[in-house]
């Protein structure tokens, strides 16, 4: 470990944007109550503003006269290895980068992106939780954070095609849409891949998956490691260029959508004229354009609710599309949790938290609030458009022994095709 490399990273990251946000903070502490991890533990160290403490320290000691003076006379200590270790658990295990805090902050400070910057320093110093680092290394070497090899992936895709009797085109040059799945879908929710295949087929979309750009999840982005983030993004972008597609469709993965849609263009060269979109938007467009027809009221049997994923709804903007679909598919049974939409509560498993074993206690505690939300409206089923959230829900309802059915919205749409 090397505290200096963390400090160097912070200094590199600090431009007008970061500085003005840090300067705006009044230390009012309101952000604490926006954080699901603070809500369930009451631990003041989980206050979002405290999570950016190291970045603030680096900024003051390097860029402000008062901070420099204080550091020079020894009133303010430099960032130590010990501090990095301590904050590493706070920013990786107790933060899903859901950015709800930014909505509560009276100053509107973008705490989520700032905490991502704090993680970047941790990644540079090598103070990343072991599980996260291992997954990132696997993604780098094998191509999948779950360790799915090229061969295993190809076999899996073939198996999905046989099992669900669907066509999953691989490396089809001249396709319009490149669909990129996550390893969670490939290994744990293969029904989702089959569902996408059915919908694409029905809509008559020319689509393909790519063996070179087959992983949508970005563990470099979870870690905050910019070099790895770019490497993993480039694999998909290069595949898109090689196949000559018009758009990249991100399947059910929130963080990946953030990386591809909202981050990539600002940190690297992205292929021109290639649109980045999300499965929920494509399904909605197909349906609106009449390319797919869905059975009205197909899921009106049990009360169902929709979970807003931080990166797809609050930070992605796809708020009306799932609701329009659900009001068609379950006009009587669809009920909203409270709060919802932009203000929704995070599932507790995003931002890489779900893959860190040490964070299990925290993420289940946070999920307890989702259980309460669902109970309050008597939901018997819940749906979402993020397989990371879905995994958290599947494990969470099992943990709480709560009898709610967890479904992916894509799979529901595929099931309602006429």
């Amino acid at each position, binding site marked *: 470990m090397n505290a200096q490399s963390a400090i160097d990273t912070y200094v590199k990251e600090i431009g007008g944007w970061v500085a003005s946000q840090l300067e705006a*903070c009044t230390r009012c502490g309101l952000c604490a109550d926006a954080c699901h991890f603070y809500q369930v533990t009451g631990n003041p160290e989980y206050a979002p503003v405290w999570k950016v403490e190291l970045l603030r320290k680096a900024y003051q000691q390097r860029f402000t006269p008062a901070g420099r003076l204080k550091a020079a006379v020894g009133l303010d200590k430099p960032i130590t290895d010990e501090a990095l270790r301590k904050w590493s658990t706070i920013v990786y295990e107790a933060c899903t980068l859901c950015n709800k805090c930014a909505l509560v902050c009276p*100053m509107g400070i973008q705490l989520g992106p700032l905490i991502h910057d704090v993680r970047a320093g941790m990644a540079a110093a090598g103070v990343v939780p072991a599980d996260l680092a291992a997954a990132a290394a696997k993604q780098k070497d094998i191509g999948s954070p779950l360790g799915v090899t090229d061969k295993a992936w190809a076999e899996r895709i073939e198996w999905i095609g046989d099992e669900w009797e669907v066509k999953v085109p691989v490396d089809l040059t001249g396709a319009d849409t490149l669909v990129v799945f996550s390893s969670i879908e490939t290994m744990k929710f293969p029904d989702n891949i089959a569902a996408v295949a059915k919908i694409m087929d029905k809509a008559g979309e020319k689509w393909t998956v790519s063996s070179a750009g087959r992983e949508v999840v970005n563990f470099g982005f979870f870690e905050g490691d910019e070099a790895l983030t770019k490497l993993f993004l480039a694999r998909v972008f290069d595949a898109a260029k090689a196949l000559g597609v018009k758009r990249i469709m991100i399947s059910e993965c929130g963080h990946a959508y953030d990386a591809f849609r909202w981050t990539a*263009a600002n940190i690297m060269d992205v292929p021109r004229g290639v649109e980045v979109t999300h499965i929920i938007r494509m399904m909605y467009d197909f349906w609106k354009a009449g390319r797919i027809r869905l059975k009205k009221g197909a899921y009106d049997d049990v009360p169902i609710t929709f979970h807003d994923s931080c990166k797809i709804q609050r930070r992605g*903007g796809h708020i009306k599309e799932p609701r329009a679909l659900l009001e068609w598919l379950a006009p009587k049974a669809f009920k909203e949790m409270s709060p919802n939409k932009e203000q929704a509560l995070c599932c507790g498993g995003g931002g890489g938290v779900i893959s860190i074993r040490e964070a299990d206690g925290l993420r289940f505690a946070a999920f307890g609030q989702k259980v309460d939300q669902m109970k309050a409206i008597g939901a018997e089923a819940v749906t979402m458009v993020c397989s990371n959230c879905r995994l958290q829900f599947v494990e969470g309802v099992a943990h709480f022994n709560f009898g709610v059915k967890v479904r992916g919205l894509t799979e529901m749409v595929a099931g309602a095709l006429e």
Partner: protein
Amino acid sequence: MDWTTILRFVRGPFFKVALLVFIGGMMYRLIRVLLLGWSRDRVPSRGSKAGGVVKTYVKGLLVLPFIPWVKRTFTPNALTYIAGGLFHLSLFAVVIFGTPHMLVWKSLLGFGWPTLPFPLTDGLAAVGIIALIVLMINRLTHPVLRLLTKGPLWLNWAFTFLPFVTGYMMTNHLVFRYEVIYSLHMITVNVLLIWIPFSRISHFLFYFFSRTFHGAQAGKRAVNP
């Protein structure tokens, strides 16, 4: 030295110096941040950035505690919201619409404006003082605020509190002779003005940066800020 001489000094040259330190210091803070470099956002937008900015300013001014999502943070922090809100209201009302303050503005800017009746600004000043005391107690007892609050933040509190108290005592003719309390009021105001550029009270300037970003980020993603 008698109090009349002191008063002449503190509301004359000392006030001018304090004002210059305040303006110069804030300019320095602003320019330093501006010069740190700004990268262009190359991400294509889904919605309107400008629309998001307008929405966030409107929403930021109307914090309505009965909206469920606000309630979730409001209920455990009612003191911060209510006392914080009342303090800012009191501050703006008294400093901008109090008659004596308007006259100071007039002497500086060359033009004046209608002011609020004395009983109203006086009452609001009292509200501001009470709000500050409540906020201090809150800061001493709330676990998150205790973690966040270090030495300089207490100076912020003290340097803001004193002008309020001395001003209130002056207009209500409490305890001290007029020249004495007027001098004390001006001294505390000058200290506050000098202190602001070195403190987080400067948030009134950077607020416009963070709010604008917040609105633009939400607008870009076509979500409500």
